[in-house]
């Protein structure tokens, strides 16, 4: 991984007709980095990828790859790989010919072609399927063919659209480690799209959280998980108790609540359920719901602050429905938000 910017998007704006899908996106990626575009469905992840690949013309802004402005370079000259969410294999061709397609376009022939295709198929464990019809394979296998097809041409950048979301739970874990391995082995710069924060946190070197066509936060998985910048990101990564802050007091239900300690100067604070202290503290609430989840027990409390979600060690004695419980929102563990709403 070098320190130099490899891909940069500068004020990139994208639209479908008159509807804006992405506005003023700014983003940089270094060589060899594995970047995740994370966000709920419809936030513009696929659109952004299509624009980087050249399948869509930006209405504004610039795309620079490896020091060259490629904003107006046609898609077939960009040398960027894209693994479609639908895999988009060529139904009339065998697995071998699918993988060979891009190499043939580059004029690779004969023995060299065979070797490269076979190496590609081997790296995804599908060498023995070379002569099958591509669309006769299972979903997971099709995806690996699609991956091999994109990788054998050694693109400058490889993008994957929701590579894990069409797979069942087992395959998803396999594919996750496979992607990680391939990226390590090839040192390829990769962008992958996901709406699943767990996947993004597990795989990426850097995460870009998107919302409504704009970037909400960019950071390492640790940044995103521990230091969400906005209430949207906080909610997305599991901070279920989020409050506005004014003059050092929590705002809930239009009322102000003083916290036990000195508040940081931030517009909001957020707590994961596990950060809420139960059994002592300045606040109190009624137990509305209890759920047992193995080593922890989750509670929903009805409080003057609104519903509070808490999780405690399941070994502790359980509170029962309707019971009054004292609780605290410790300022020390809270994540300060830079923007709320």
């Amino acid at each position, binding site marked *: 991984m070098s320190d130099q910017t490899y891909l940069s998007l500068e004020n990139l704006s994208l639209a479908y007709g008159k509807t804006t899908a992405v506005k003023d996106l700014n983003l940089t990626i270094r060589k060899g980095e594995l970047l995740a575009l994370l966000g709920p469905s419809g936030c513009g992840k696929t659109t952004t990828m299509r624009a980087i*690949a*050249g*399948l869509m013309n930006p209405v504004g802004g610039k795309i620079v790859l490896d020091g060259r402005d490629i904003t107006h370079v046609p*898609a*077939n*000259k*960009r040398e*960027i*790989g*894209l693994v*479609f969410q*639908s895999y*988009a*294999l*060529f*139904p*009339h061709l065998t697995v071998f010919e699918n993988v060979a*397609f*891009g190499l043939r*376009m*580059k004029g690779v022939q004969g023995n060299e072609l065979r070797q490269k295709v076979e190496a590609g198929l081997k790296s995804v464990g599908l060498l023995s399927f070379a002569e099958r019809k591509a669309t006769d394979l299972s979903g997971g296998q099709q995806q690996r063919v699609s991956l091999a*097809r*994109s990788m054998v*041409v050694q693109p400058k950048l490889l993008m994957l659209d929701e590579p894990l979301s069409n797979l069942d739970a087992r395959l998803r874990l396999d594919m996750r480690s496979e992607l990680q391995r391939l990226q390590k082995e090839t040192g390829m710069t990769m962008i992958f799209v996901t709406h699943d924060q767990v996947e993004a946190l597990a795989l990426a070197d850097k995460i870009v959280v998107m919302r409504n066509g704009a970037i909400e936060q960019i950071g390492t998985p640790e940044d995103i998980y521990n230091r969400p910048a906005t209430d949207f990101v906080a909610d997305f990564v599991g901070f279920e108790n989020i409050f506005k802050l004014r003059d050092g007091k929590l705002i809930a239900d239009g009322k102000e609540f003083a916290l036990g300690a000195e508040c940081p100067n931030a517009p909001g604070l957020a707590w994961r359920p596990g950060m809420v202290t139960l059994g002592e503290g300045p606040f109190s609430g009624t137990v509305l719901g209890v759920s047992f989840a193995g080593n922890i027990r989750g509670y929903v409390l009805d409080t003057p602050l609104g519903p509070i979600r808490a999780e405690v060690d399941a070994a502790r004695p359980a509170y029962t429905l309707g019971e009054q419980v004292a609780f605290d929102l410790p300022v020390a563990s809270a994540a300060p938000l830079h923007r709320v709403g």
Partner: protein
Amino acid sequence: MIRRLFTPLTLFLMMLFLIGPFLIIVAASFSAGETLAFPPQGFSFRWIIKVFTIESFRQSFGVSMFLAIGGTLAALILGIPASYAMSRYRLPFAETVRFLVSMPIIVPGIIVGLALLRYFVIPVGMSVTLALFVAHTALILPYAVRVVSASLANLRADIEEAAVILGSSRLGAFFRVVLPNIRGGILSAFILGFVTSFNQVPVSLFLSGPGVRTLPIDMLGYMENVFDPSIAALSSLLAFLSIGIVFAAERFLGFSRYV
């Protein structure tokens, strides 16, 4: 009881009316007698053999083949890009184009033939062969557009984008991944167009000139003058040719999926 017999009986009568005459024609073509009659007198191949010796049949068969193959190819050359454009892009006049393209099915063929004769052949001096060619192409075009559109609708658009990203031009992607994937539809359209053109009577009725007439028109003319079993023999041969083509198409291409 009567109700239970009704359905099979209707079916039987329908088959009798549809297939009966055809069987009679087939039987009559093997007659050894001099006139077209049923039951046939004796058994021989003489009329089947005679068909191949009649010069005007040979000529009009050539014309019909030329029209069926040439007209269908022309209709496909026009129809494939049109279907592609209508399926992949939101064109401003797509509906109008679709309507115009299906006009030849809606307008009675005899009017198409008359119009071409009245406004092109007579005043402009367009050759009869060209007029026939234009008429048959126009007639086949709706089938070509329909069948090709149907197979394009079953083809994902993103495979073209995949091809482009892998280095192919847009046009190259059309030839490399679109055409190969709709070849079944194209072959089906070809067969449908071929058979439609070959069996076409009304459009061709007005469009015949010295030495230029299609086979069905020629057969009509022949029957008005000569009443021997050769016409039955030719009809049987054509029917078996059509059946053979459609059967082969179904067997190897799954023809009925596209029509």
